[in-house]
């Protein structure tokens, strides 16, 4: 029997990393919000790796923070080790990664949810999405309670029809043995939503007391840590850190895998889902790269509350008896006691080509989705989508303009654009190589890029916004000063240059030109820069980067200008591409499938050629003939 329980503005389904951000965003924007989880103990659960951030994912977390999301703050509270990766490379690829205390992370996020006004956290399984006339009307729980609402944000992660598998052992559960969601897929299919089946996997957890760390390399955290959140200062959250450990697989490991490969469900065909190439199981690695004589294995603590250690690099779906032998063939793990087995997990997710850039499902008004359910992989990717889905559901209910970040503004923009534009046939992981304007999208300037947007949305307060505006001004002034301060070839200058292995000046030079030399930077010129004021570290960082790499940065900015022109040429939502006779058939099919919102997005769809784009432009001119002169003007530019 079903009955009406209570009205809400927004219902969020799933309290993982996407769901938490989505629900917090809506509630903070004053919408009456309820968030459902299958278990109160799985809020912001980290069922796989015990860390947040990493290459390009760290960028996402900082962007989430600049927009007013929670992930950065939560990991700053609960980290147990922190490192900035790629420091020997350019600033664009520096990436922050922190090991989390999993329990602490989960509890801390739960506390935030529980204490946010307008937000209700509830344990229940949703089995049906109620839709009338193409609009979301509410959701129904397993127990029959109906919650009428104006918007739904679906963040079911890996729970839909989930199966956990190793060898021929199958558990019909979600991750960590949690109950899976068995009914929702049917409801979604009835609504005409196209589903995919993806897989992912996780390695075993091993009892710390049974590991011989003397056979491994220790990996310590950074001495001086950098916080994820822009509201924190490093010195305020500095703490004693735990270590991770590095060891390697051996030929014996590979032999065990090879000999038992037929017992892996990945190869026997028991697993139908598509896995992410970025997260290969040890079976994948051994089969695909037979020439590699060893692979890295990182031993990472799950938290301070437990002896469990996460065995990164050795995810597997081999049978239990093989797993034990396989893990024990790794130096330092000879006597390892497995606490939890490695397993592969299969789950239902959506074909993200059905989403608008706002993460609203195209044919159902008010129905948003985010996270692993959208075909991504990773906590950070999920959180980023959750935040954007939350923001856009709120904007819709508040009658405001949607917020869509483009590829030149944020990794979040790249992530969502890729998801909805490319035919991603595997769980999508963020990578720096996916961001074509990455010199501009650095983790160090996420606040300068996005705080204003967070402020306009209403998730960032005035004080924080003003601080960013002031920071911007300070940076601008300092760069100007350095560009115009001329230094003569005085003896103290020459001596300093000599001591830094830099060639002496032959004529006068600006301070900025000296900073541009590869061997020099802002800091080391302090003694010859007499007018320098004391500036905060984050300002100095920006000044240094912007001067040192200004040639490249300017070039990317010019590319972005071209890119924006194409993005600004909008395509009407209901355009039927079959009506455009000169388009090639393949282009028609692809365009009808993806329904791009702009000429720019259309041009990124594989199978749509530059000639098709020209044809489309010409057609749109005719289509828009009523306002032709204005639109002509807009379209003419840059063609």
């Amino acid at each position, binding site marked *: 029997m079903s009955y009406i329980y209570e009205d809400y503005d927004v219902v969020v389904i799933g309290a993982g990393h996407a769901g938490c951000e989505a629900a917090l965003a809506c509630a903070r924007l004053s919408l009456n919000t309820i968030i459902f989880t299958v278990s109160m103990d799985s809020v912001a659960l980290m069922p796989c790796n015990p860390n947040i951030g990493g290459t390009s994912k760290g960028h996402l977390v900082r962007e989430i923070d600049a927009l007013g999301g929670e992930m950065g703050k939560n990991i700053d509270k609960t980290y147990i080790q922190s490192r900035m990766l790629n420091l020997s490379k350019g600033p664009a690829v520096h990436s922050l990664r922190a090991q989390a205390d999993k329990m602490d992370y989960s509890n801390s996020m739960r506390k935030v949810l529980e204490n946010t006004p307008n937000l209700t956290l509830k344990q229940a399984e949703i089995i049906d999405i109620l839709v009338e006339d193409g609009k979301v009307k509410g959701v129904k729980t397993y127990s029959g309670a109906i919650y009428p609402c104006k918007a739904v944000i679906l963040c079911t992660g890996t729970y839909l029809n989930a199966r956990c598998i190793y060898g021929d052992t199958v558990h019909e559960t979600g991750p960590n043995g949690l109950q899976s969601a068995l009914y929702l897929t049917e409801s979604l299919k009835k609504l005409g939503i196209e589903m995919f089946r993806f897989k992912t996997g996780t390695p075993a957890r091993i009892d710390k007391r049974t590991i011989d760390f003397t056979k491994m390399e220790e990996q310590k955290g950074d001495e001086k840590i950098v916080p994820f959140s822009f509201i924190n200062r490093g010195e305020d959250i500095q703490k004693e850190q735990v270590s991770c450990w590095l060891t390697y697989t051996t030929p014996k490991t590979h032999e065990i895998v090879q000999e038992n490969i037929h017992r892996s469900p990945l190869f026997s065909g028991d697993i139908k889902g598509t896995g992410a190439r*970025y997260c290969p199981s040890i079976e994948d*690695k051994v089969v695909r790269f037979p020439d590699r004589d060893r692979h890295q294995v*990182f031993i990472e603590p799950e938290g301070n509350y437990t002896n469990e250690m996460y065995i990164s690099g050795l995810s597997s779906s081999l049978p239990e008896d093989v797993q034990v032998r396989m893990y024990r063939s790794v130096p330092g793990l000879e006597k390892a006691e497995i606490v939890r087995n490695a397993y592969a997990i299969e789950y239902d997710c959506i074909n993200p080509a059905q989403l608008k850039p706002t993460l609203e499902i195209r044919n159902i008004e008010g129905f948003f989705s985010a996270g692993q359910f959208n075909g991504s992989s990773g906590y950070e990717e999920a959180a980023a989508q959750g935040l954007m889905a939350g923001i856009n559901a709120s904007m819709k209910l508040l009658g405001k303009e949607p917020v869509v970040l483009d590829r030149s503004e944020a990794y979040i923009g790249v992530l969502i654009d890729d998801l909805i534009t490319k035919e991603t046939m595997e769980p999508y992981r963020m*990578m720096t*190589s*996916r961001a074509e304007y990455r010199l501009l999208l650095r983790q160090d300037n996420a606040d300068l890029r996005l705080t204003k947007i967070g402020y306009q949305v209403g998730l960032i307060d005035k004080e924080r916004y003003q601080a960013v505006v002031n920071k911007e001004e300070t940076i601008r002034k300092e760069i100007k000063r350095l560009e115009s301060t001329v230094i003569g070839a005085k003896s103290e200058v020459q001596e300093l240059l000599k001591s830094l292995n830099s060639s002496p000046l032959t004529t006068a030079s600006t301070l900025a030109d000296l900073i541009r030399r590869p061997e020099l930077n802002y800091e080391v010129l302090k003694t010859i820069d007499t007018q320098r004021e004391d500036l905060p570290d984050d300002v100095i960082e920006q000044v240094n980067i912007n001067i040192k790499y200004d040639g490249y940065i300017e070039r990317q900015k010019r590319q972005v200008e071209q890119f924006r022109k194409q993005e600004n040429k909008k395509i009407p939502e209901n355009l039927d591409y079959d009506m455009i006779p000169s388009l090639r058939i393949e282009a028609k099919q692809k365009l009808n499938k993806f329904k791009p919102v702009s000429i720019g997005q259309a041009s990124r769809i*594989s199978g749509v050629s530059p000639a098709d784009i020209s044809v489309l432009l010409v057609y749109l001119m005719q289509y828009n003939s009523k306002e032709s002169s204005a639109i002509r003007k807009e379209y003419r530019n840059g063609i």
Partner: protein
Amino acid sequence: MKSDTIAAIATGNSSAGISIIRISGDKAFPAIDRIYRHKNGRKKISNMKSHTIHYGFIVDGNEVIDEVMVTIMKAPSTYTREDVVEINCHGGIVVTRKILEAVLKQDIRLAEPGEFTKRAFLNGRIDLSQAEAVCDIINAKNEIALKNSLNQLRGREKTIIETIRKSILRDVAYIEAALDDPENFTLEGFADDLKSHLKLNCKAIDELIKSSKNGKLIKEGIKTVILGKPNAGKSSLLNILVKEDRAIVTDIAGTTRDTLEETIRLNDITLNIIDTAGIRNTDDVIEKIGVEKAIKLSQDADLILYVIDSSRALDENDDRILALIEDKNAILLLNKSDLRPVVTPNDIKDKSNHPIIITSFLDYRGVEELELLIKEKFFEGSLTIHEDIYITNDRHLEAFNNALNSLRMVEDSVNKQMPEDFYSIDLMAAYEELGKILGENLSEDLINMIFSEFCMGK
């Protein structure tokens, strides 16, 4: 922000009559001012009244390229509604292309296929009701351009481009793998590897540029291919066509060394005759080099002269060739009519619709008839030069130059000890430029290469 200025040869590259180079956009007038000289010395043509035509010279630096008539048309009463300049010059391909080159040096780029029409439309010059026709033009021209681009590449060139691209992509993939999985891949010492790859790739592109420039000379005229089995008389035909009162304009051995190209003029028509030279005094074109060669040659040809030895019976090779040239512009020559014929025109009429001429190169029988037929075909318009081929060549050159510049920028970044992530930007730019020639777009090449070549991730 304004759109850029474009130029292209607006007429066919036929050697008869005149050719027109059209320029459209803001920079059209400044450009023509720099390369146009009035006969009385320097006179700014852009100050003249719109829609007037002027006699003068086009110069490239100090070199006078040609005497010309230049039409200037100021926006908006022009085909594209932009400033338009049209240079009317003497028809020769070499001259026309030289003028185009001089124009392109003025910060002007080569027009995309159908781009003048596209601009005319987007700027409101062409009525909206004709949108469909405009779409068709753009689409058709693009298809031709892409086809030509691939046809124009010699097999070896294509292989070289593909090799360079693969080498570039692999380097980028390695850099990116190391950026995304820094604990697994190190970039230490990579700069040295990259430098040596860059050196090789730059050299290879440089050679492509050189051969592409040579190619321009070779390809003048109506591309005429003589096909035939050994001893059918193709060499004699070539000699007859080249000899006597007809001047040999050039005589350049092809870069692949197995073809010889002779350029002759038949009255006003330039024929560029290609014979399989290396095969002449050795062996059978069919057996030795194979039908492949004939396929390749006849694909690009404007005109095919198929010489058949009528004193010998037809075999399956003839059938294959006849099938091959079925849709081409071809003339069949039943040669050696001085001997007792085994093959008659009726035998061939069943297999082919092409016109047949009975010839004997010993006593010049049928040669005049052949020449008349070629002239007739040309003047009635059924025989034309593939003008797009010349433009294609320019496009290739543009892409090669852009790719080379990008690789040089990478070299510069390496020398300046920039961090490795900066290299990817220009490496990918070079990769994309070279891809334009092959008609390939970027899509997921890089990501796929990263995952297929390197064991990424945990």
